[in-house]
């Protein structure tokens, strides 16, 4: 029985995390930025689950559960805030939300 080695999972997780950061920095639409953040959290989940599998433990999987739930709560709050922003100014482009520049 062959296993995918741990390092592959960790590399994939690092790549996904880096993609999330890149999306956060370069994307202009708030919803896409928000999805990039979710991608970062899921990259972390992947590495938790991979470690848990490697270590034959359940802690890491439980951690992933908690991350999922927190991400859902954060997404709900985030979408609510995005909705009020949109109601107040009718745009979701991040460069146009700048009433507080210096």
């Amino acid at each position, binding site marked *: *029985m*062959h*296993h*995918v080695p741990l390092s592959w999972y960790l590399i994939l997780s690092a790549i996904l995390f880096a993609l999330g950061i890149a999306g956060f920095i370069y994307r202009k639409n708030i919803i896409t930025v928000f999805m990039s953040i979710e991608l970062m959290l899921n990259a972390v989940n992947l590495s938790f689950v991979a470690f848990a599998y490697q270590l034959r433990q359940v802690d890491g999987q*439980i951690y992933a*559960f908690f991350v*999922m*739930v927190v991400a*859902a*709560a954060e*997404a*709900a709050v985030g*979408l*609510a805030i995005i*909705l009020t922003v949109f109601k107040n100014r009718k745009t979701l482009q991040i460069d146009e939300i700048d009433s507080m520049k210096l």
Partner: protein
Amino acid sequence: MPSGYLPIFVFAILAALFPVAALLLARLVRPSAPNAAKLSAYECGIEPTSQSRGRYSVRFFLVAMLFVIFDVETVFLFPWAVRYRQLGWFGIAEAGVFLAFLVVGYVWVIRKRVLDWS
């Protein structure tokens, strides 16, 4: 190199090749005679009346958000279900406390009339 995945690779390649080959073959042998009736929706519902990227009511977003939260929270009940016998009364009490907190949220949602559609 993991070898157990070879059939999946082969399957994936075949799955990608089949529609391409079928469409190419059909294009080569069929006659070309377009008309309006061919382009209409055929026994698959009605003609769309507006763009599919139109605006939705805010209510849909609220309900979707509530669904996401209450749906994801139930993930904590699964570990309890798996270890139901070992956890015994402690597990039941913990799950009760957890559900009580969810009920508080539910009561708040109802009293705020978020689910009131009239």
